[in-house]
């Protein structure tokens, strides 16, 4: 099915080889799971690399992986070591800012990397937003 001269496929040929509908293949390209083709619209050409990407996605979706997880796997993002946190015995300082009864903002400025001035501005903005919303339409 590949073009003998260039080793490339049309979209139709690619879909047939991958066993996926055209709409789905285009969707994977649009969301960045599969590389864009060479050329556009009718002149678009696809390579073996595209076919391999599609076959891998098909295999992973059949195994029950979400597209988001497949994206992580294909870009290697899934391999990043998780951030160590919540060690037993560790002490974390959190600011609890009470906006109103039942409304609270929790902030760890060290982790968030916010200066005290930024924290103050942030709380002021939250307070103003709350007052504006509740004055327009008071809670029951």
């Amino acid at each position, binding site marked *: 099915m590949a073009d003998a001269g260039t080793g490339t496929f049309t*979209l139709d040929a690619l879909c047939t080889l991958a066993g996926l509908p055209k709409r789905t293949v*285009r969707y994977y390209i649009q969301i960045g799971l599969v590389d*864009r083709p060479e050329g556009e*619209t*009718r002149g678009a050409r696809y390579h073996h690399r595209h076919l391999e990407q599609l076959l891998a996605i098909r295999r992973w979706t059949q195994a029950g992986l*979400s597209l*988001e*997880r497949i994206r992580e796997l294909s870009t290697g993002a899934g391999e990043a070591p998780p951030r160590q946190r919540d060690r037993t015995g560790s002490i974390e300082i959190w600011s609890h800012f009470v906006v109103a009864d039942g409304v609270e903002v929790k902030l760890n400025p060290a982790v968030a990397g916010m200066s005290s001035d930024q924290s103050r501005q942030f709380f002021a903005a939250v307070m103003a937003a709350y007052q504006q919303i509740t004055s327009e339409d008071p*809670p029951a």
Partner: protein
Amino acid sequence: MSAIYLPEQPAAAVTGSVLQSVRAEGRVHGLLFELDIEQCYLNPGDSNIEAVYTFPVPWNAVLLGVEVVLGERVLQGTVVARADGERRYEGALEDGSSAVMVERAGDGMYTVSVGNLLARERAVLRFRYAQLLSFAQGQVRIVVPTVIGPRYGDPARTGMQPHQTVTNDPLQAYPFSLDLVFRGEMAGAAVTSPSHALSARAIDGTLVLSLAGDARLDRDVVVLAEGLEGKSLTTLGRDGDGYVALASFCPPPSGQEPDRPLNLKILVDCSGSMNGDRIDAARRALHDVLAHLEPEDSFSFSCFGSDVRHFSSSLLAATPRAVTKAAGWIAETRSDMGGTELAAALASTFALAQPFEADVLLVTDGDVWEAEELVARAEQAGQRVFAVGIGSAPAAGLLHVLAGRTGGACECVAAHAEIAGAIMRMFRRMRQAPVRDVTVTWDTGPQWQTRAGRLVLAGETVHHFAGFRERPPARATLGWVGQPDGTVHRTDAVTAGVTADGTTLARVAAAARMAGDTPAGRHALALQYALVSPTTSLVLVHERTGAEKPAAMPALHRVAHALPAGWGGAGTATGGIFGSPPGATLRAGRQGPPPAMPAVWRREQTPGMLRVSQNSAAETYDIPAFLRKQVPAVEYAYRDALRHLVEALAPDNTTGATAVPVSLDAISAHLPAHVALELRVLVGEGYAEQDVADAFVVSLARQFGHDSFARRVLDAIRRLADSLRPAPAGLGERVRHIVLEAFNARTGDAPADIPAWLRRAAD
């Protein structure tokens, strides 16, 4: 596997959605509901895009047509085989032309793709639907869903293609407007909405309802039309050279049938998505369920999330002791069981206490991607499933199909005010004796007819279609055999003698016929009657020429749904955060006596009832905005009763005596039945009766501490509270919780009646 599919690229979805607004206009005439929905798209960017939106429709609505306005041009779609539709759509995009494709995405869902919307171009899509409404014991419930919430599981299991999956974005808020026109007898109905504030106008004998205020695509629009008498009637229409007939039977109550004892397996969804309003509504519904159990009934109670937990291994007789115990289980019900493994939970519940014949009462939001397989397995199990859908936007499609195919029924409750009525109707259905041999016969031999259902209930509509080659029928007869006595019942539906214009009836009939046909037959019907089905889609192409043609593949813009109001505890849909004042009754005048239905179904007790005068046809009535703001949506249900109790408890200054002794029996007489029941649960758990009564009075006195009682009463009640014994550890907090719930309960939240077993015990 991770449960909920969130936006794959959240940042892209947060701002600047291409969907600008949605406008809907519906017409209700008899039991036919026609709805036109207009979606307005705008490409604000500088390059061509493809907008994709999976949107909800009423669960059994039939899509009749799609019209697209693109610039100056108006285009009509045609229905073709799905593969053909995809070929045309993809071909158009590759050519640089624009195209629109509408595909079915599942029960009650369609996906529309608007391909190659050029830079700063606007497109308006108009969808036309028809839906058959049903009487359900005195009311007709009209639902216009507007949002699909996050659901548990893999959408691919329902046959959804990757591009059709639904994403949710908490920051989206699409404007939505709706007008509903009630014609004919429907214009005389008492209309309420538990979901939205409405304004009403009476124009030339019709009732026109509009959503008041700024509505958003964040909850189902629910409109209840009450006070109508269910009728059996046959409607005729043309179908090519022949005729199509719709017989709508509404069997009258058969009279003195004894209530059937129930074997009921209660199964409650305790998954994370039930957090907030939903689990609260579920608990209220379950307390109502307990209140309807009779001593002859038996029941089990199970919760599910990622796992299922059965609180008993067999069915328990509904003795006062067992019901009290179950009330405790319900009070402890939390939305803390993780995912929504509905299929496994149902299978496990079906297997419970076999081989006894039992029904399953499922209370859930239905937010799960499940489909045919689950329903087929439930059907095989042979136990009826009665489903109560909870929330501002429950997945009604799945619940209706599940209930319908197993011979049960489905009720959805959008607000606390609907719970009592829904549970009462459900019990009526469950207590009716099962029927067999349901048949529909016509006075003229039909060419084809739809399969008769398995369930015939008094006061509930059964729709049945048939086709006739030459002569239209004059009468249809629904027959069924009651069990166990074998009595034969019949009810007739005669024609009004008028043949409806247009092809709507024939196409709605074709959609109904598809359910009982072979796959090939379904496909042929879909193509013949231009219906979008799992094997067909609607497509239209607008050819672009020359420089207009975009050179590149369009960028994808998926329309993310808002989160349904109150979803997962994100705000509350019953309070003021998202809510506009719902619950007002609107009525375009009424001739004759008030509706013959139980008082608890009427909304007369709802405050702020608004009536539209129909003395003059020209007179119109809109609720002014300031009035809508001031009309309280609901009133406190028990606060007056509690105030009276506090007043009665306050010792007289001169004699020092109270009108009510502080004992559980004495104060119970002044309390709503379920509050008294909750206090008795504590006694059942081992607390001394006097301690419970004392803690209740102390807590109540504190609660009314800021109330505007006369100083004398307040001082007296405080002195009384101080003189009582301090509550044992843990009791005070639990009693305070009961007091708070009763203190803050709103009208319509209240259980309809004293529990049946309690009545019996008192007798």
